[in-house]
């Protein structure tokens, strides 16, 4: 059984990402969901089930479906809260797709939301960490371990990473919903204060508030709602060790979860040469190094050669395989649960040719990718045309 061509995305919504000090967690959910309702041309009462992707519900919310039910008054239907590290958003989308493909529901809602700036602590909320093992680990720190190893093995340096930040900031400058909408120079990036060596400030995605929503329906019903829509072609999710740094065999030159999730998705979508067949991609650039590793793990380049894609401009907006035309996590921001759903929003807009100044040229196949934890959970979603 394959999910290919069975599920349609008929509506998407996304709030302006950023330091949304004047919006509550609920406000963002309502705005994103109602934008998606409107885009799909449906009434809230038509939603038969919903998935809520959020790593940490807003202050005062339960770690359950209620964090979506209450703001939307979406009561009496199945709502499942989903959490899978930074792959939370795409994972929520994946669950919604599976339920529709299974024939259990006709129309479902998938929402991703996160209020990162309202936690009472800096960075990502530390919850469930071992009090001693790996104590001192931070999000930039754990990805920096891969950068150090990659530098050591393949001989690149910070200037190559900087090119990722420059590209994604440039793309973000064309995106009115992005957290950052300003270009940066390579020199600025290289000289920025160090956060976790070798990452400087501009190698890291920001701490961002945001929410996004997607309406899915059975592909054979999609025409009842609109004439232009996109469909899911393939999905993959892989979980590896949450403690890769204790794995004695790990080479720290990529993330196996991404490789495995990509294999699953490509197989389902019938893709054999991703470098040629994928038109554009939204990948998880939580840190600049991660984007380069993603190129390799997603099969866009061989191991050790991903950095050439950024140096050669292949992944630039006008390149052969644009990556992160939205601005990526780097510029668009990264509210954990919202990011994956936001990527589906971006893919849909691009596939339908509605991305304005940052519109990519080739729009056959779009790929969304999240990798979460210390490179422990990855989700790959492939969308295309019916």
């Amino acid at each position, binding site marked *: 059984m394959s999910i290919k061509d069975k599920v349609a995305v008929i509506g998407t919504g996304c709030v302006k990402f950023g330091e949304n000090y004047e919006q509550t967690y609920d406000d963002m959910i309502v705005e994103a969901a109602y934008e998606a309702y409107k885009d799909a041309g449906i009434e809230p009462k038509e939603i038969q089930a919903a998935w809520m992707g959020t790593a940490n519900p807003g202050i005062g919310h339960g770690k359950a479906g209620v964090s979506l039910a209450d703001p939307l008054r979406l009561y009496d239907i199945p709502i499942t809260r989903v959490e899978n590290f930074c792959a939370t958003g795409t994972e929520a989308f994946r669950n919604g797709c599976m339920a529709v493909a299974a024939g259990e529901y006709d129309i479902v809602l998938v929402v991703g939301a996160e209020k990162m700036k309202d936690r009472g602590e800096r960075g990502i909320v530390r919850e469930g960490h071992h009090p001693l093992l790996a*104590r001192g*680990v931070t999000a930039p720190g754990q990805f920096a371990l891969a950068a150090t190893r990659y530098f050591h093995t393949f001989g690149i340096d910070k200037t190559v990473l900087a090119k990722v930040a420059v590209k994604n900031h440039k793309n973000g400058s064309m995106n009115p919903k992005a957290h950052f909408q300003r270009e940066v120079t390579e020199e600025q990036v290289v000289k920025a204060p160090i956060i976790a060596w070798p990452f400087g400030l501009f190698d890291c995605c920001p701490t961002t508030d945001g929410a996004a929503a997607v309406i899915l329906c059975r592909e054979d019903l999609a025409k009842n709602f609109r004439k232009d829509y996109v469909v899911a072609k393939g999905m993959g999710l892989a979980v590896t060790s949450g403690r890769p*740094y204790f794995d004695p065999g790990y080479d720290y030159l990529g993330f196996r979860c991404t490789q495995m999730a990509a294999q699953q998705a490509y197989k389902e979508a019938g893709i054999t040469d991703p470098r040629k067949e994928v038109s554009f991609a939204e990948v998880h650039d939580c840190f600049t190094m991660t984007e380069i590793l993603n190129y390799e793990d997603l099969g866009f380049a061989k191991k050790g050669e991903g950095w050439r894609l950024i140096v050669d401009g292949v992944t630039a907006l006008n390149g052969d395989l644009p990556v992160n035309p939205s601005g990526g996590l780097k510029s668009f921001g990264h509210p954990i649960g919202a990011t994956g759903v936001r990527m589906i929003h971006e893919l849909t807009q691009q596939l339908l040719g509605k991305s304005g100044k940052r519109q990519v040229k080739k729009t056959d196949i779009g790929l969304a990718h999240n990798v979460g934890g210390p490179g422990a959970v990855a989700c790959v979603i492939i969308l295309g045309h019916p």
Partner: protein
Amino acid sequence: MVGIKAFGSYIPAWSLSRETIAKAWGRRPPQGEKAVACHDEDPLTMAVDACLYAIGNRDPGKIDGLIFSTTTSPYKEKLSSTTIAFCCDLRKDILTADLSSSLRGGTSAFRLACEMAKNEAARNVLVTASDARLGEPESELEMSFGDGAGCLLVGSDDVIAEVKATFSMADEFLDAWRKDTDRYVRTGEERFGQLYGYVKNMREACLGAMKAAALRPEDISKAVLSAPNQQALNQLVRALGLNAEKQIQDPLISAIGNLGSAQPFVMLQAALEEAKPGQKILWACYGDGADAFILNVTDAISSYVPGRRLKSWIGSRLGISSYEKYLRFKNILETDSTPPKTSSIFASQEVAQDIRLYGSACKKCGTVQYPRAQVCISCRAKGDLVDVRLSRKGKVFTFTKDYLFASVDPPQVMAVVDLEKGGRLYLQMTDCDHQSVAVGMPVELCFRKFHEGGGFHNYFWKCRPVRGEEKP
């Protein structure tokens, strides 16, 4: 023949020049520097290092007791000796005891251990003394106090120094003290304390031990006499009729400071490192009375190789750049942080893994892995994993220098370390100059204090750049 079988010591990687202290207070700078424990160290963790060096390559399963002495115990109620014993992977059916509150707790413990060995109640007993005393800022004591630890392995076979005579005396005397609510050590009138406390008690104890061994002052090869300062020691040497040039062990106050209860142990190591068979050592320690011993150096000293020499510890130190940083290390300038959640149940379940440093070795494929597991990370066999104590030596596989993690001394270096004999750990690196961290650099593991989550001291292992030269 009861006596010392092995010794080990520990001098922290950090030193503070007295000039830096003097500058902070606008004073004339005295000579030298003092050893300062890192912000993640306490007397318990320092004692672990000293004990591990005393044990060396010996089987820890053959050690029958561990007595820990300190005046700066991490706990008012709870043994530290037990934590140290588990760190050293000692058995459970042994004697563990803390002898706290006394500057001569270490020598008192040594005397008790000798009695145990003599009565065949124990074959091998570790006696360790460790201190990190705080002198009040801007005081003379702040200048003189240093941090460190020492350890002696006591037994009745293969001794390198035999105990020939012992003499203890008690004296109710207020010289230096700290009430249960005091943070800083208090002292009485200095001259009075020196003459009527230190010199009087030490002289009587030393003469008592020498008399018991039928030795005259000129028979002593080396007198290892604990001392609060050089001036007090000079007076004692004169009172004993010893030759200050030839017979007196340097108390090392100039180089590392007065190490409190650890001072006589570290001084004795310095003397034993140079000792020759047949030499007579007078060893004495002061505090509410005094303990004195006559040690006879045996032939076994010729083939004894110390785990790490004092020269190596003292020669491999990093300077603390400012007085303010010293205040942070000592938590006199407190940092505000919320410790992670933990519980007594959780901590109990983790003892083998977190304290004994046990990982799992797969009987099927041989992979050594950490943390402990039931299913092999490599071949996924279930039920074929056995506990194995990991090596404390390794090499950095990859690392980062993290400025985001709240550290007393940023950046926090985090390293993935591949251990000798297998296993990979992800550890904080401590005692390092972050500029010198590199892939492939050799590191050694050390036991350190992490935080006070759950309301108790949470200890675990870190790594540090290898200090000084190594035992082959």
